[in-house]
């Protein structure tokens, strides 16, 4: 029915995943790093949802999975921000590259 | 609990006595209990000897643990068994540990309580190695000796003691690592680690490549312990920097695990494949013999001389093993025992020397005989025993080892004989430089001779050295059945 091939969604998801990954690894601001990870999770969700329609055995489970993933991601983000706030309180910095007292 | 288990765990009695009954500050009672704790295994081991002579098969087996994997089951039992060789080594161990304790009474002043505690753990490990009848148990105790030795060297040694201790640990750790790989490889194939059962399994499996591979691993593993050049540098450091009382045990017994292992694991389990290594072992033996001898020739430190002498003597063990026949094996075993006694004697004397002079540097020593004739005489006795003078144990073992190697590899034997010429050279050089010569050159002119109390351990060792030298059958009768097993892979 649809002309959009399944690969289209998968590749879109892959692209977003990669961008998210790159962002998470290069961005300086910790919040952006966290949100980049959220982007990666989004890409995963896209995969899941796409598979729930176009997979080998498409079914609703993929959507359920993505719902769980979204929820948990939100919790994770909340904790992340909380930790960041605690850190900021102690260090006055959100630069991720300045967190390097623990090393070697 | 059988007699063997009792023997095996008897050092624990000493450990407990010291731990419970003494306090750190009370050195006198610590030493007293240590001596008591040393006597107990000694007595039990002689009881075992008498039992064994009465044709009492001392063997114990308790099932320990097992795995069920697919079709095969892997069983490891707690198996102890004696044979002549093992018994001889056990007697040697209990004796030398006892004497080392006596030596420590004067030599160890720093925290003797801990010292003896580790010493008893070490004794437990060594006894376990010699009493166990399967590879796993062997390894279990083999590895157990690592920590006590580490401390005995690292805490009570001299100068570079900690480096020596680490060297010891690394080399031996690597050796036992290789050993473990080989043991587990065999175990994974055979499903058992019992020496005889493995031998039976290997005989019917007839997988030469596998056996050769495993044997190479054993050769490396025990080559570290023995040591075989170039895996020897740890052993020299230990000889030099460990406290002499510990070196008595180290050179006297611990190194012997290498020889024992090579015989027990090599020809005891793979009688068909082991002869493949005859030439290899002969070459290694020769290298050891000559390398050690040449180096012993130019050392300035008495302990280094003895260390390289040990390396050289281990070459004779290897040569004997390379003979792959009864005479060779017996020579190797005799050398094992004999070198144990001799090096224990020598290092006992070194300990006394250090107490008197604080040095073992040959350049600083000289003309000692006038001041300390008995000590010097004992040193000379030890050296003569070491250089294989007939009438002492060293000769019998060298002779048999050479007889053994000459059957198949006469050329190696002939070159090896050069080594025993060098033995004379370096032993006499060291000992005569120290004891002979102008007494006025002796900075320690007023050094006390060996005391009456100190004489006893040396006397016992000399007595045993001469007993074996004069009447070797006292030892060789014990070994015949073992040898038959080793050579033919049958019997026992």
């Amino acid at each position: 029915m649809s002309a959009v091939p399944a690969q289209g969604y998968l590749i879109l998801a892959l692209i977003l995943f990669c961008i998210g990954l790159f962002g998470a690894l290069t961005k300086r601001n910790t919040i952006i790093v966290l949100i980049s990870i959220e982007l990666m999770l989004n890409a995963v969700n896209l995969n899941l949802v796409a598979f729930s329609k176009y997979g080998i055995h498409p079914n609703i489970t993929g959507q359920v999975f993505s719902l769980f993933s979204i929820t948990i991601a939100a919790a994770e983000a909340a904790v992340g921000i909380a930790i960041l706030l605690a850190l900021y309180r102690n260090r006055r910095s959100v630069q991720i590259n300045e967190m390097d007292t623990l090393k070697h | 609990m059988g007699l063997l288990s009792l023997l095996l765990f008897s050092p624990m009695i000493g450990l407990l006595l010291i731990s419970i009954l003494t306090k750190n500050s009370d050195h006198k009672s610590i030493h007293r209990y240590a001596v008591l704790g040393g006597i107990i295994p000694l007595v039990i081991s002689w009881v075992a000897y008498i039992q064994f002579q009465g044709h009492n098969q001392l063997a114990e087996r308790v099932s320990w643990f097992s795995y069920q994997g697919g079709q095969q089951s892997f069983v490891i039992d707690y198996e102890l068994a004696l044979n002549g060789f093992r018994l001889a080594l056990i007697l040697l161990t209990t004796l030398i540990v006892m004497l080392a304790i006596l030596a420590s009474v004067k030599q160890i002043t720093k925290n003797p309580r801990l010292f003896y505690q580790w010493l008893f753990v070490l004794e437990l490990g060594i006894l376990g190695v010699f009493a166990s009848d399967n590879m796993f148990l062997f390894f279990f105790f083999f590895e157990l000796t690592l920590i006590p030795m580490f401390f005995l060297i690292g805490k009570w040694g001299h100068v570079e003691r900690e480096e020596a201790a680490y060297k010891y640990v690394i080399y031996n750790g690597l050796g036992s690592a290789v050993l473990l790989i080989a043991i587990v490889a065999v175990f994974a194939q055979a499903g058992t680690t019992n020496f005889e059962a493995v031998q039976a399994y290997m005989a019917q499996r007839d997988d030469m490549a596998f056996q050769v591979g495993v044997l190479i691993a054993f050769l490396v593993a025990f080559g570290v312990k023995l040591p075989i050049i170039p895996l020897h540098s740890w052993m020299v450091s230990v000889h030099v920097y460990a406290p002499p009382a510990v070196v008595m045990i180290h050179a006297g017994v611990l190194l012997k695990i290498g020889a024992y292992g090579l015989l027990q694991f090599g020809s005891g389990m793979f009688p068909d494949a082991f002869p493949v290594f005859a030439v290899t072992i002969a070459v290694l033996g020769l290298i050891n013999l000559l390398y050690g001898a040449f180096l012993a020739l130019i050392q300035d430190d008495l302990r280094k001389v003895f260390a390289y002498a040990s390396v050289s003597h281990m070459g004779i063990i290897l040569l004997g093993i390379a003979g792959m026949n009864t005479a060779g094996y017996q020579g190797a075993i005799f050398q094992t025992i004999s070198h144990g006694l001799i090096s224990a004697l020598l290092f006992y004397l070194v300990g006394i020397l250090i107490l008197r002079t604080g040095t073992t540097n040959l350049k600083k020593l000289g003309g000692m005989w006038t001041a300390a004739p008995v000590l010097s005489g004992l040193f000379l006795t030890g050296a003569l025993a070491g250089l294989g003078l007939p009438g002492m144990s060293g000769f019998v073992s060298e002779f048999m080892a050479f007889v053994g190697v000459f059957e198949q590899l006469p050329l190696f034997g002939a070159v090896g004989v050069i080594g025993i010429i060098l033995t004379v050279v370096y032993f006499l050089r060291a000992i005569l430089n120290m004891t002979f010569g102008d007494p006025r050159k002796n900075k320690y002119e007023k050094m006390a001779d060996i005391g009456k109390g100190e004489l006893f351990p040396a006397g016992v060792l000399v007595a045993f050295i001469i007993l074996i030298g004069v009447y070797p059958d006292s030892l060789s009768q014990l070994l015949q059945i073992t040898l038959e097993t080793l050579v033919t892979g049958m019997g026992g």
Partner: protein
Amino acid sequence: MDLETLLSFQWGMMAPEFTILITGVIVSLQDLFYGKKRLSNWLAIIGILLAMVFLSAQYQHVPVSILYDTYVFDQVSFFFKYILLMGTLLILLMTSTSRDEETEKVRGDFHYLLLAALLGGMIVVSSADIITLYAGLELLSISSYILVGLRKYNRNANEGAMKYIITGSLASAVTLFGLSYIYGLTGTTNLYDISREMSVIDTQLEPLAVLGFVITFVGLTFKISTVPFHMWTPDVYQGAATPITAFLSVVSKAAGFLLLIRIFVAAFTTEPGLSDDLTVYEYAIGFAGVLAAITMIIGNTVALRQRNMKRLFAYSSIAHAGYLLIPLVALSAFSLETIWFYLLAYMWMNIGAFAIIHVLIQNHQTEDISMFSGLYQRSPVLALMMTLFLASLAGIPATAGFIGKFNIFLGALSADPAHYVLAAIMIGTTVISYVYYFNILVQMYSRPKAESSPIQVPKALWLTIAICAAGTLVFGLFPNLALQFFSW
């Protein structure tokens, strides 16, 4: 779904989980309304003991699954839950009389979160469905993140927690990415169904299967801290309070390993997965061997340079994770047993060691190795115990660690083909590890004591140490106790 079906499941089997959940709720309520810190601790301990009692009742129970096979109670889950509960119990004992002010302030939350993390671990262990697994995993992870950052006025704790959550989220994103492919490939999240689907997989779908396998695996290496997701470990271990570090290294890691086993062994080992009659697992697991090798080497060599004890143990823990990967590579009938036994042994020895480190850190306010100086003079028993734990970690006989390593070895060499290289690397790096373990021994026995004041060891901590020491020794001398227990 009607109520009848719902009630037809044997919910009773979930009693341990429920116990933990309820304990967690009680503890947090208690903390909220009464704020009695000591009480929280005892409540938590009682809760865990109760859960262990419930769990014990399941010994030799026939495998049961509930909720359409999404949640199972089998042998494996039983034994791993045992480790999780026992480990957490020991850690709770360890903290029961903490004198650390920073920890004291957040004590109630600490207990609640610890129980939550434990619950997550237990769910991971029991679940047979990817979604359940993921939820459990995240419960464990998120609780752990918070636990690490709990000492919020401690810069190191903040930093550790931040690094932990960033790496953790990254890893869980990677894991999920891989899992999404597995879902796409099989259309199901149930591990049994996945396994069934895999056996009839179309050859053209092979890339997806392999990708799913590999990516998920790499993502999950975070949890067990092996290469490539291992680098957070030292930083986080150093940043976290010592009991938390112990928790991470033992409980969290045990759950991580079971996760790996569940997903990969259950889902990818049905034949024939791929074209040449290999299962996906057999086809792809080789790289885990490489990872194991690198992990062992990195862990043990970098540990050589550490002076900070918690970092040192972090690298040691990386190395141990490397050892534990080997049974997975050389998968055989007793891989599971091997991993379980090793984790059990690791629990005793590592928590024991951390308990002593905890005491010393509290006494000395430093984490440097010098805190061990002259420990033998100050407290011979403590030194002896530490010696035992270190010996076990180093794999010296008569300790559980040795038997654990021996098992791994046996597994590696009895596999077909035998993994000689891996075994050699393992044992070689073990020897390297002697150096840093023995270094601590030298500090304890041969160095002059740093302070002459006696070391104060809380009673409950003695209990932890004693239990750990007993466990280390008993399972080292009589491994059959555990091995027979395992093969019911």
